[in-house]
């Protein structure tokens, strides 16, 4: 449906990601950064912009920005400058945001994403450090706005992409990839629900071959679903305008998560004039080579590298590897389980049954009710033929409820699969002996009856017989 509406048009998308640095204290003050605290309980006199207070930068935040830059394959700028971005708003007590303008801490880089046409490189324009603003509540009182400054001054990394994405899917993949890299690095927790990572999306449309269209910016999208929906809506809106002979106004728009529509927030004429200038309270930030080198050496294995390794070491398909490495906890879980086990079986159980349990219970991998050790034990029991796949699903469900180990559940439920050939042979004999008519028909060419014999034998074993052995034995006996 999306493709239909947009067919014949070219979409150009650029994204600004705001990622909260995973620091304990704020960028320029020692106030805590905990989410969900009592209003105005994490506000220092610096965050409230009391006269005479001076900002002192958090070293950890500088490190996280540089690490993130390395993870985004980007140029680290040894000299960068903090600027004041001036605007008036009630949740910005300073009257300006301390940000970086012409000289950001991190310059150009790129990330690779998977698209339906294969790998695609998405350019990163820059990453800079800046302060978050406070929070305004407009719905507490009909005549007044309530302001909470707990978030004011928390460190953000703004990551600006090049306009390299051409579909809502690519945009979502890009944000997923950046989020995944930051989570592997540990520089941002990536919690979109709590606003630790949010995206502003720039969209324009044009006819292939024509020059670029006028773009609109959609602010503050905090889920992959919203990013996708906002781009689809916005592209259609712009196409419709142009097809009706009207033109697109360059403006900032808001996405309504209820209606799925975007509406104008402010047009270019009202655009802020930020009057940037270097903050006289802060000296330029200089980084030395050895320090940067030290950080480079501390970078952990990142998703692209792990994916390569999984494909080589465990012969995973690119598709499976991509699913597993997109989340750090999942790739760690997978590696715990896969040691000395069949990778194919492990992949199926992790991305199939385990994912479906997590989905059903609305849990993330970190909170999996089944530990990697438990799943490993279950898979061992499948591999050594003790239980069938179907039985294993039953065990997994029970495991989820009781937290018991696989072997314990198998014993308790008497699930253990019968793999003893003699035992199965006597089952098969009794089935064949009690159905002489059908045996005759089968031998006269009614092949379909084979399934009937297997079913009867399985029934007789109460589902415990190893199906492969049952199959083999029946085939053998009937061909005699």
């Amino acid at each position: 449906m999306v493709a239909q509406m947009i067919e014949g048009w070219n979409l150009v998308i650029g994204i600004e990601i705001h990622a909260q640095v995973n620091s304990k204290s704020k960028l320029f003050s020692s106030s805590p950064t905990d989410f969900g605290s009592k209003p105005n309980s994490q506000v220092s006199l610096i965050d409230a912009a009391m006269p005479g207070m001076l900002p002192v930068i958090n070293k950890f935040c500088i490190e996280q920005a540089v690490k993130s830059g390395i993870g985004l394959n980007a140029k680290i700028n040894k000299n960068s400058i903090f600027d004041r971005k001036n605007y008036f708003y009630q949740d910005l007590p300073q009257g300006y945001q301390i940000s970086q303008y012409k000289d950001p801490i991190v310059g150009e880089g790129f990330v690779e994403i998977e698209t339906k046409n294969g790998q695609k490189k998405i350019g990163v324009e820059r990453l800079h450090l800046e302060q978050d603003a406070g929070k305004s509540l407009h719905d507490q009182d009909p005549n007044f706005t309530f302001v909470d400054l707990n978030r004011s001054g928390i460190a953000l990394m703004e990551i600006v992409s090049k306009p390299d994405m051409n579909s809502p899917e690519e945009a979502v993949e890009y944000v997923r990839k950046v989020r995944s890299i930051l989570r592997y690095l540990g520089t941002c927790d990536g919690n979109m629900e709590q606003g630790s990572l949010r995206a502003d999306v720039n969209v324009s449309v044009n006819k292939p071959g024509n020059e670029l269209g006028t773009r609109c910016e959609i602010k503050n999208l905090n889920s992959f679903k919203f990013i996708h929906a906002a781009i689809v809506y916005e592209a259609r809106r712009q196409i419709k305008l142009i097809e009706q002979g009207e033109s697109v106004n360059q403006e900032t728009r808001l996405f309504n998560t209820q209606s799925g529509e975007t509406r104008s927030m402010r047009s270019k004429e009202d655009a802020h004039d930020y009057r940037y200038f270097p903050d006289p309270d802060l000296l330029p930030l200089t980084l030395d080579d050895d320090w940067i080198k030290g950080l480079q050496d501390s970078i952990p294995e990142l998703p692209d590298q792990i994916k390569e390794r999984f494909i080589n070491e465990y012969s995973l398909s690119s598709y499976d590897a991509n699913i597993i490495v997109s989340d750090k906890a999942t790739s760690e879980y997978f590696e715990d389980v896969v040691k000395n086990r069949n990778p194919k079986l492990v992949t199926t159980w992790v991305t199939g049954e385990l994912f479906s349990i997590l989905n059903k219970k609305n849990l993330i991998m970190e909170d999996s009710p089944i530990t990697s050790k438990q799943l490993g034990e279950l898979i061992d029991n499948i591999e050594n033929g003790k239980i069938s796949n179907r039985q294993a699903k039953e065990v997994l469900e029970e495991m989820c409820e009781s937290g018991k180990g696989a072997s314990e559940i198998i014993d308790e439920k008497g699930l253990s699969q019968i793999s003893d050939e003699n035992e199965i042979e006597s089952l098969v004999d009794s089935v064949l002996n009690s159905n002489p008519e059908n045996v005759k028909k089968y031998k006269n060419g009614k092949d379909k009856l084979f399934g009937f014999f297997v079913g009867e034998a399985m029934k007789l074993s109460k589902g415990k017989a190893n199906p492969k052995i049952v199959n083999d034995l029946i085939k053998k006996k009937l061909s005699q």
Partner: protein
Amino acid sequence: MEFDKKSLLKLGKLARISINEDNLNNLSKDLNSILEFVDQLKEIKTDQVDPTSNSLNQKLEVRDDKVDNKNSTEDVLENAPEKEMDFFVVPKVIE
């Protein structure tokens, strides 16, 4: 640099300072004389000098990522003209 009345009104709007018509002429004159004074800096030849945003020969001071939450909610809200339920209260603003 010339500071015309239109720019002055825009600056006032951005800074949320109301400027009334009677003052416009005087303010414009004042601001222009300030700018002319600052413009003297342009007379200095700087084409051989690297641009710098700071004249101090010092490095940026940094601090460790340690929490110190010494300012209580009451202290922070003490000077607020309006407060309720630990929030600052301001006239309704919806952009």
